[in-house]
């Protein structure tokens, strides 16, 4: 394959994953510079992507195909269009900043290398996700982000809360993953292709047979990943991760994967009433839910986390509307949100780092001690609030432009204004409360953060403002191509820096700021009120998760204990119960129970033999002593041998006889040391059950045999053996010829069984030999702390001498770890 420069695209997901493999080792060497140096890779990728902006803006879609699973038509297909580009640049850009930040934030932490490696891997997985042009590949990276986020959230693994959050995130997003898998298979079955590009080219699937299930599955995937109500509860818990992880997770990655999926598939699945209704409803509810939940928090990080839920709701809502303006707004909002959210998280992390607390009430007047942090926070918060000259402003403006037509849109508009207002209030609180006002005492004396901690928020905040200043260019180069990809049609950019004072949107913005100001002013009262409400409701999804989880575990315990109880006799009951079923169900369903057999015509000695066999069985059933049982066993064996003899099987008769004798010899050898219970230990109910089963199986087997006998036997094999035994196999004893020649392989396997049994029995008998037990208490090994549980040898054992020969055995602990 000739080298094509676009193949470099394939390196975007691969290179970070490869670097992740060695990142931990590199960190040991690079120490404090590890973060910065590792960040070179995502930065370089960002730069590379930047070189492609113009081509993509020109309408080009860069496709890469490498063979992978040819037999299923699944290739390593990548697709870079406007949507992927916006996401990929956001991911790589913020990824670079986060790596630098993480290097500073966890300087000297023993697991820093692991964290950097996981962050790199996460970057690679996200890039793969947004570049994948193949449903399978997309799913591969989708699950990879779940796994990486699991490991990242559980980073602080010593705390149960972190472990819980990680498991919770993995399970909730895992449900979505399964839905996506099934949805992808369904989409592929409907369209005959795994390629996303082909799907997009095929246009909307609305109205086809599989549309609704496919839509539901994809929505389930996106909603769990993007923390939509009611799957939102994992996201605030993911705060258990270190701050760099939160900054990354909440801005450009993980939760945005769901948004990306919706955007990506919106030309295929979107535009229907079901789509719009579901997305607008769920998105709207989530927006309000997140906004209200954010008001309740006092932990800065948790406040931010809850606003992420709200923002995700807003994004889903916009994608649901699907108009040109709405998708443009979504793209703008995505970029703006990613920039300010990452910056704010980093600032909060820096505050935490510097003061030792993240409590809103415990912080004040930091602006003088941390001026640069304040600057970054202010820049980011302005964007979050949506003031002019920030990306947030344009995102909001664009959204308001899109709304207002139908009743649904009007409702959405009200929700959006309210939600945006509350978010703005939170933004004000985060930017003002900790920084302005009088200086208060904090656990640690506040100081300005280091360069690595400041670089990220400053750059991101500046980027948010810079993009706004260049909004015309930005809209043309990034937003319009992305929006076109989402809408599935060309969307023109009309963004300009100069506000249109005549439009309604500006007034709505003013209204939003009003709500924000009011929220900020009444923040504490609102919080008190909401907490009171919360106290009255008492239900949280988070607690419900625990209840469900523990309920499931208890159920699992009970079910497993019920099925795997460890009582062999019941396991055997199951086997024979099934045997009875296996015999009768087919015969009954084919109505093939054989007729009641006629009284057989037997000769007198045959009657004698049968009587002997029956007598042997009865004697065995009644045997109460060892000797009696052995004799009865011998009698029934002898009878069987006689049966063989009179029905033309002297070889069998002979072998049966000898085996019977040997069995009796061995039984005698063993049973002199083993007692036979005087009495059957079974309860009467058990006896009834077992008797019924035994009779059923016996009758069933007889019936099955009679059924088989009711049709003539195909004599081919017997005739062949009889005809060829002497002429070609040179043996007159046909049975023996079969054994050593016609079916010699059976015999070879059979003597292998005999050999293996010999080995196994000897190993079993040797188990107790002192020589085989090197760990004797008398050796120099120091004694174990735990006293061994001694199995008390019973005095009723007939062979006490032999018992005494095993002094060690009695000292085995029941768990078997040796004396």
């Amino acid at each position, binding site marked *: 394959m000739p080298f094509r420069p676009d193949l470099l695209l394939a390196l975007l997901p691969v290179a970070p994953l490869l670097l992740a493999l060695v990142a931990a080792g590199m960190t040991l060497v690079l120490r404090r510079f590890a973060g910065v140096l590792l960040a070179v890779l995502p930065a370089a990728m960002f730069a590379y992507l930047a070189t492609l902006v113009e081509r993509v803006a020109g309408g080009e879609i860069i496709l890469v195909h490498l063979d992978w699973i040819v037999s299923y038509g699944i290739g390593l297909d990548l697709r870079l269009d406007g949507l992927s580009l916006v996401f990929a640049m956001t991911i790589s850009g913020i990824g670079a900043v986060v790596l630098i930040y993480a290097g500073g934030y966890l300087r000297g932490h023993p697991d820093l290398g692991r964290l950097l490696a996981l962050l790199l891997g996460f970057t690679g997985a996200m890039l793969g996700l947004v570049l994948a042009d193949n449903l399978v590949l997309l799913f591969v990276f989708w699950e990879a982000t779940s796994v990486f986020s699991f490991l990242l959230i559980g980073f602080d693994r010593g705390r149960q809360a972190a472990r819980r959050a990680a498991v919770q995130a993995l399970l909730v997003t895992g449900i979505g993953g*399964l839905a996506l898998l099934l949805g992808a298979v369904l989409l592929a079955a409907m369209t005959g292709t795994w390629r996303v590009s082909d799907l997009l080219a095929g246009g909307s699937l609305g109205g086809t047979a599989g549309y609704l299930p496919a839509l539901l599955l994809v929505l389930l995937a996106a909603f769990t990943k993007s923390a939509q109500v009611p799957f939102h509860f994992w996201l605030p818990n993911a705060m258990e991760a270190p701050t760099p992880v939160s900054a990354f997770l909440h801005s450009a990655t993980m939760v945005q994967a769901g948004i990306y999926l919706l955007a990506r598939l919106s030309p295929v699945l979107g535009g229907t009433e079901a789509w719009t209704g579901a997305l607008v409803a769920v998105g709207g509810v989530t927006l309000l839910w997140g906004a209200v939940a954010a008001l309740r928090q006092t932990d800065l990080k948790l406040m931010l986390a809850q606003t992420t839920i709200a923002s995700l709701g807003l994004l889903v809502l916009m994608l649901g509307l699907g108009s040109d303006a709405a998708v443009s707004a979504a793209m703008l909002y995505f970029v703006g949100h990613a920039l300010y959210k990452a910056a704010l998280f980093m600032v909060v992390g820096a505050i935490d780092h510097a003061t030792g607390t993240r409590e809103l009430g415990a912080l004040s007047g930091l602006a003088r001690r941390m001026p640069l942090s304040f600057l970054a926070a202010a820049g980011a918060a302005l964007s979050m609030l949506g003031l002019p000259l920030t990306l947030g402003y344009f995102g909001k403006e664009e959204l308001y432009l899109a709304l207002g037509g139908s009743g649904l849109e009007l409702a959405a508009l009200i929700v959006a204004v309210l939600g945006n207002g509350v978010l703005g209030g939170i933004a004000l609180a985060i930017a003002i409360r900790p920084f302005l006002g009088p200086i208060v005492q904090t656990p640690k004396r506040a100081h300005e953060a280091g360069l690595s901690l400041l670089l990220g928020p400053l750059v991101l905040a500046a980027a948010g403002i810079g993009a706004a200043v260049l909004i015309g260019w930005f809209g043309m180069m990034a937003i319009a191509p992305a929006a076109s990809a989402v809408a599935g049609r060309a969307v023109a950019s009309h963004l300009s820096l100069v506000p249109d004072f005549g439009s309604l949107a500006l007034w709505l913005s003013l209204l939003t700021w009003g709500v924000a100001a009011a929220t900020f002013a009444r923040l504490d009262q609102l919080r008190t009120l909401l907490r009171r409400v919360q106290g009255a409701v008492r239900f949280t999804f988070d607690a419900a998760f625990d209840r469900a989880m523990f309920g499931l575990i208890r159920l699992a315990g009970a079910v497993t204990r019920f099925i795997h109880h460890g009582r062999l006799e019941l396991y055997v009951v199951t086997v024979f119960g099934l045997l009875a079923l296996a015999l009768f169900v087919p015969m009954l369903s084919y109505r093939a129970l054989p007729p009641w057999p006629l009284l057989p015509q037997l000769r007198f000695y045959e009657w004698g033999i049968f009587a002997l066999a029956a007598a042997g069985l009865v004697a065995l059933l009644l045997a109460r002593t060892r000797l009696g049982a052995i004799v009865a066993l011998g009698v029934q064996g002898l009878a069987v041998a006689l049966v063989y003899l009179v029905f033309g099987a002297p070889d069998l008769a002979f072998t049966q006889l000898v085996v019977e004798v040997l069995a009796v010899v061995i039984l005698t050898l063993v049973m002199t040391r083993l007692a036979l219970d005087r009495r059957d230990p079974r309860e009467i109910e058990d006896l009834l059950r077992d008797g019924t089963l035994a009779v059923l199986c016996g009758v069933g087997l007889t019936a099955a045999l009679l059924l088989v006998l009711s049709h003539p036997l195909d004599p081919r094999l017997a005739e062949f053996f009889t005809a060829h035994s002497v002429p070609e196999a040179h043996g007159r004893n046909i049975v023996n010829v079969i054994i050593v020649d016609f079916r010699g392989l059976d015999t070879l396997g059979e003597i292998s069984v005999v050999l293996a049994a010999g080995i196994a029995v000897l190993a079993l008998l040797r188990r107790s030999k002192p020589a085989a037990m090197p760990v004797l208490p008398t050796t120099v090994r120091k004694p174990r702390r735990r006293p061994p549980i001694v199995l008390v040898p019973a005095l009723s054992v007939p062979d006490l001498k032999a018992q005494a020969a095993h002094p060690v055995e009695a000292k085995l602990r029941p768990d078997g770890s040796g004396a």
Partner: protein
Amino acid sequence: MGTGMTAGPTVIADWLVVLPVLLGLIGATVLLLSRRFDKVSGAVAVLFVVAIIAVDAALLQRVLVDGPVAMIMGNWLPPFGISFAADVLGTALALAGAVVTLVVLVYGFAERSATRSADGYFALVLLLLAGVGGAVLTGDLFNLYVWFEVLLIAALGLLISGRRVAQLDAAIKYGFLNYLGTTVFLIALGLLYGAAGTLNMADLVATAPRTNPAAMAVVGTLFLLAFGLKAAAFPVNSWLPASYHTGSPAVSALFAGLLTKVGVYALLRTLVTVMPGVGDFLMPALVAIAVLTLLLAPLGAIAETNLRRALGFFVIGGIGMVLAGIALGGAQGIAGASLYILQAMLSMAALYLVAGLIETVTGATDTRAMGGVYGASSLVSMLFLVLLLGVAGVPPFLGFWPKLQVLQAGIARSGLAGGGPVDAVALLLIAAILLNAFLTLLAASRLWAHIFWRQGPLHDGVEGAPLRHQHLSRREAWFGGMSAFVLVILILGLGLWPEPLLRGSLIAAGDLLDPARYLAAVGFGGVP
């Protein structure tokens, strides 16, 4: 000499078909005779297994190119004599079994025990491998019974090697229940011969439809019971969680890699290829068994606190997956079932090996007494993570691909994509597969959180002080760690580049569903 019963002379390459078994048997006897020479026994065993791997690989190569190959034992044409017939599925399973055996042998060098060779450990391992080879290559049902018995007795011999008292209990349960299973198989064979007059699989393909359908239904149902027991399908799987964890980790791994897979292979072979009519009759039962196995197995893994016992439930869950594939049918379903058997052989064995490493590092067998492995050993952590994700069916690990195939089969049959009425059975199976995946993920994440993340052991729900870990000795690291590592790398590589496996699985499914090539290889049409 000679019989003139076959058309032409046997080319030397046909010996490839029987060599996997023959080398196993000869190796077992050589190792038995030299069992006093503890030092060399291991090396000799490894040599034999490597030779078997080479033979299997060469055979697989040939089968992939030329289609099924048969060897007519004793030159007596089937159905009169016994034929070995190697197709893609059988050969691939034989190869995977040999690979697992090799890895387990090397891993076992790390487990110190003075009496292994003298106890016939190596001979039994080779007998076990020979049994697997015979079972997956034979074309005769009675011969299959014989190899089942070889497997059973060799496994029992291995299960009791060691000094734990619990092994005796385990061996009794394992021995009795499995022996009952083979006896049911034997009963079925007696009835089958009486009804159809033949025991040769290829011959049965032709004769079964002419045979009394009620009798064949009885036989097939008995097969389902017998093979279901061997495969550890619900509800006759109780022997597996009762026994696998009691032996040494190496033995557990060998069992997990080899034993149940042969049972489910036999089910696939008989119900899909040999007696498809009976397979249809048994479909409701098969669906019920598959669903229950899929749902109950991961619950066991969630409930269990003994690490290796919990893994046993993963093994059972995998069997449910295979059964679901068979029940869904079609080329995709059968291909998925076949591939799942193969991947489970490798993955489950590897899981037990790594579990053995975990037990060494933490000095415990109960997950409540474990903790902190993530901090103690990156290698063990990564190995286990890769395997857990594979078991949970997370891509791109090996366990994902057969699941994708089975889901494809399910969606194709469900009618969801249009083109037919909605099939409730397919939906039920899909739901069970997805629920199984979710519960497995839950069990896996809990195992991870408890063993790897939690720092100290758990006493009455309270976390103790961080556990102090033992380092792997040099021997354990080299033999134990490296062998597990190599196996996991193999699994990882196959997962990342699944094309050969997927293509092979489609060929295997094709031959299972339409045995024309198989029949031709065994020589049907040329019977005098």
